[in-house]
């Protein structure tokens, strides 16, 4: 049985465990129909030209974990940003772990999707926001929508700021041979609210994991959302991350994606600007080796005047890794005075590495400033020589230059501890220890 059929039949089992009368279930049934029609995307589709899910579909994933697993904090401490105090929402094999988590209802809601989807007090919010910005015809998104039950639910009311950043951690224990996870997150920042989220997916063993995650983010007027995705997973873990962001007037949303690992990672990051004077920032650092594959697929839809977007993706590709960047900016006819900027720089450090990049502009308004730049190149030989002539070994010199290359992106990280953590991961990745932080 292929994965699609398996998912379709699992849906029937899934229905036994959820409230069929809840309006959300209608959304789910609608979504499974769409998925049934579309199936998994193939390489024939333009959006999936460079990324194939064929191998994943051959794996016999278990759709629902059979048993609940527990983990000790000390075993997984290193996956947290533990230097600072944070709210934590932790899932083990897709199941919420109350023991490891720290949620709150104190003025703000940092809790669970399962609660939000079932408890009546959340219904007004769910009615307004759930599945409202997520695509209704992208097949993997609809697949997630159909199975949406668990994930993080964050609601920040007007003028509120949570006391500390929020960490969302998805752990896979590998107690089963292969598991498929479908977390569904909903994040709402009401007017003038502000929050910071760090999200990480981590597999703890060599067993295969396939995560198909959907996150919806709503930023109301004047809201500020910082979202950090840390992707440094095991080489047997695959992730399709679908993030949909809807922004209102004057809001600022910044999404940073740090891709350092995983077997196959696909980031679908979609910004929809539904107001004026909006600022959207999309940044990413990708450093890959082995046979890893990362595909960044971004969309910024400028639908209103006077908005800005900034995109900056840097990639370093070694060994047999493959990098894909597909950035699309759409500027609608009415979106005059748009300022859209997109940059993608890549360094290939191995003969076997591949980079495919496709920055696209679709512009229908005339009074706009839109540009994109894209480069593929090597480290500057002369800069390398300069460093080495001053006694810095080649390896360290190379690492220094790569740091410098990625630094633009790191500069806008607003949690210092996270920044130094990312620096450490980069150092690890490059196999060096430079005695200072950049």
């Amino acid at each position, binding site marked *: 049985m292929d994965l699609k059929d398996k998912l379709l039949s699992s849906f029937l089992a899934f229905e036994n465990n959820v409230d069929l009368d809840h309006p959300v279930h209608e959304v789910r049934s609608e979504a499974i129909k769409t998925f049934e029609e579309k199936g998994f995307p193939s390489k024939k589709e333009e959006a999936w030209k460079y990324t194939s899910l064929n191998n994943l579909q051959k794996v016999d994933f278990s759709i629902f974990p059979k048993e609940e697993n527990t983990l000790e904090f000390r075993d997984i401490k290193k996956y947290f940003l533990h230097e600072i105090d944070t709210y934590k929402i932790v899932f083990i094999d897709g199941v919420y772990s109350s023991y490891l988590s720290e949620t709150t209802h104190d003025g703000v809601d940092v809790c669970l999707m399962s609660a939000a989807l079932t408890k009546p007090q959340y219904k007004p919010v769910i009615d307004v926001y759930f599945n409202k910005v997520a695509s209704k015809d992208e097949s993997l998104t609809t697949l997630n929508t159909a199975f949406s039950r668990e994930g993080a639910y964050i609601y920040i009311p007007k003028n509120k700021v949570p006391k500390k950043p929020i960490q969302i951690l998805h752990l896979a224990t590998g107690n089963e041979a292969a598991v498929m996870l479908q977390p569904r997150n909903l994040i709402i920042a009401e007017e003038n609210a502000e929050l910071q989220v760090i999200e990480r997916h981590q597999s703890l063993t060599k067993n295969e994991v396939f995560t198909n995650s959907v996150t919806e983010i709503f930023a109301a007027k004047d809201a500020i959302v910082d979202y950090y995705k840390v992707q440094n997973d095991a080489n047997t873990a695959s992730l399709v991350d679908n993030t949909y962001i809807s922004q209102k007037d004057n809001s600022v949303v910044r999404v940073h994606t740090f891709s350092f690992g995983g077997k196959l990672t696909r980031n679908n990051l979609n910004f929809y600007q539904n107001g004026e004077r909006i600022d959207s920032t999309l940044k990413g650092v990708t450093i890959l080796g082995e046979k890893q594959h990362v595909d960044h697929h971004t969309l910024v839809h400028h639908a209103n005047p006077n908005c800005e977007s900034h995109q900056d993706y840097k990639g370093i590709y070694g060994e047999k890794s493959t990098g894909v960047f597909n950035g699309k900016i759409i500027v609608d006819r009415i979106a005059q005075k748009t300022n859209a900027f997109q940059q993608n720089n890549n360094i290939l450090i191995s003969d076997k590495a591949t980079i495919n990049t496709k920055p696209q502009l679709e512009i229908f308004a005339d009074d706009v400033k839109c540009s994109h730049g894209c480069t593929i*190149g090597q480290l500057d030989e002369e800069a390398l020589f300069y460093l080495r002539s001053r006694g810095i070994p080649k390896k360290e010199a190379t690492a220094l230059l790569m740091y410098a290359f990625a630094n633009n992106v790191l500069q806008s990280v607003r949690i210092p501890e996270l920044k130094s953590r990312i620096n450490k991961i980069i150092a690890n990745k490059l196999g060096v220890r430079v005695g200072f932080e950049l």
Partner: protein
Amino acid sequence: MAYTEEELKKELETKEYEYGFYTDIESDTLPKGLNEDIVIAISKKKEEPDWMTEWRLEAFRAWKEMEEPEWANVNYEKPNFQDISYYSAPNKKPKYNSLDEVDPELLDTFKKLGISIDEQKKLTGVAVDIVMDSVSVATTFKKTLAEKGIIFCSISEAIQEHPELIKKYIGTVVPQKDNFYAALNSAVFSDGSFCYIPKGVRCPMELSTYFRINQAGTGQFERTLVIAEEGSYVSYLEGCTAPMRDENQLHAAVVELIALDNAEIKYSTVQNWYPGDKEGKGGVFNFVTKRGLCEKNAKISWTQVETGSAVTWKYPSCVLKGDNSIGEFYSIAVTNNYQQADTGTKMIHLGKNTKSTIISKGISAGHSQNSYRGLVQVNSRAENARNFSQCDSLLMGNRCGAHTFPYIEAKNKTAQIEHEATTSKIGEDQIFYCNQRGIDTEKAIALIVNGFSKEVLNKLPMEFAVEAQKLLEISLEGSVG
């Protein structure tokens, strides 16, 4: 003269197609429709050898299995391939030895087009192989060229007289089954140009062909083959205008360039086919496959000015097979009213130290859509490949669109690839600056557009540069909204 924007816009919109006329020449036309019999009939009419007929049939069979491509960013009503007549030749020939023998009506047409043959012959030194309704009727300067060993003739003539060259090279760069339109062209091509430059010869003049579409309901399927032997050089010009017509006309040409070791080919195009009226009715469909193959140290340079056609779908490409070969692409694409253009290039780096440059300027006005679509591919063995791409778009008014779809694929760590794109409009301050200095708005726009396109215009041979500038002015002046 003080124009207001409104007036300007109106004038531009009502500006009728300047070269829209229709010559009444009896044509020898095949019945509409396409099947194996038609393909054989075309081949027979051209008195082609059997291998050529078979080659066409092979292409036709492949075409039948293919589907029309839909990936381009254009919308149009698909042509009905069974409603097209695939062959029409001006009836009143045989070939002429001197211009006096040519049908005066035809000469008149040329005059309207501004290609007075005798004048060109004497003044510009350009050998013109005029293609009218698919059969070449006049070839000049053949003698001068023949002395150097250069073969410049219609492709049907070449099939008769130089079958060994045709057999060796046709379909090597654009195979019959390459794509839907290339297959169609391979099956039914009626005529085109053939050019062969022998080893070490530098072609003394710019070779040029003028294509025209005439005769209602006739599709035009040109096939051009240019072969530059080792160490040779040729500059080839191609220009087009078409009569006004209400129903859409299909044009699916194939151009193959072969530059052997150390050879250089410069291929320039000015395309000004009927773009349809201001409501977007009528106009030519231009679905062209152009590709060049570079051997060692060879260079192919494509320059194009695209102002016409209702729908353009065109990607002149370079396969940089030999080490140290160079590919260049310079393009200006102007769209107005309801025109749609999806154009760009492909640079395939296979050899070591290969270089490519892409400069693309898109100008859209009215309700038009202008897309750049390009591929830069560096293969794993292409050490030290270098590419620079620049795509600039200029938008006039807020009802048009400018799009860029660059594909960049690198499989070699020594590759250096740069791509940049910008989108902008003509600044009010720029126009104001010109107005201040006594330059009216219309002129100011022409000035700015010319400046915007200068990098590409500079690459055109003299004869074309003037014409191209004129075209830009006709297509755009004052269309700022």
